[in-house]
């Protein structure tokens, strides 16, 4: 049984999430933006597990299991998209990826 209060874990999860959000907004490299998105997902996983322990239910851990599966699928497809784009345009700068004019 953990004697550490749950909100310590929640604060750590929020800190990692905020750092990941800052990384998504500040960095230019597409791969690093992708890494920060995965870090944000990981922070939410930590929050879910901490709350699953506090409420004594297993739902949080099962949801984390599914989040990890979806994150793995997302990374595979996302990196395939990045590789296809780099092969086409030869740039990793997010400011220059504007084929859709957005």
């Amino acid at each position: 049984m953990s004697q550490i209060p749950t909100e310590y874990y929640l604060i750590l999860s929020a800190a990692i999430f905020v750092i990941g959000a800052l990384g998504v907004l500040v960095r230019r490299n597409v791969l690093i933006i992708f890494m920060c998105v995965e870090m944000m997902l990981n922070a939410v996983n930590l929050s879910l597990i901490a709350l699953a322990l506090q409420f004594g239910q297993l739902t949080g851990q099962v949801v984390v299991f599914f989040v990890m599966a979806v994150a793995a699928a997302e990374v595979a497809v996302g990196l395939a998209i990045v590789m296809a784009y780099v092969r086409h345009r030869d740039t990793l700068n997010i400011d220059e990826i504007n084929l859709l004019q957005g």
Partner: protein
Amino acid sequence: MLAGLPIYQVTTLPIYNLEITMQLLFFLALAAVAIAGALGVVLSKKPVYSALSLLVNFAVVAVLFITLQAQFVAVVQIIVYAGAIVVLFLFVIMLIGGDLTGVGNRTRMRNVASIVAVVAGVLLLAGLGYAVIAGQMASASGSTPGQGSVQAIAEALFTDYLLPFELTAVLLLVAMIGAVVLARKPEESRNG
């Protein structure tokens, strides 16, 4: 048990009766390494350093899962996140050579976005800090000893969550097909 003995007890804090135990020191050390890894991902100049900092972050979060009695999820975290996703990132970085460096040019919109992100982050952390001070959330309550084990998760996964389980299998198949199709070289059109 040695882990539960308090080293000393601070009773003069007006807000929170803080009790320094070995568990708390261990948690603080892990939290410091996790935040250092997170900052390393955001602030590194080279993408390989960012990927390695991400690996450190994932490994420390897996240890935190073990302290939260989620042993199965911790091992899955090591296998899937640290062992597959970070390896995928490293493969792609080394295949296409992520050689863009720096934190970004200082355009005005990027400055505004970073300021908005910092303000939102401070608000989020302040809200959680208020919850700590007001004492709204209790400590981790009683849980059964075998809660995070493989058997408990398997029981939940194959009875209550069977439909999401099957749909996840279909999702992984679709993702695999999509990744293979996207990564093919474009074929030349043929006459005839």
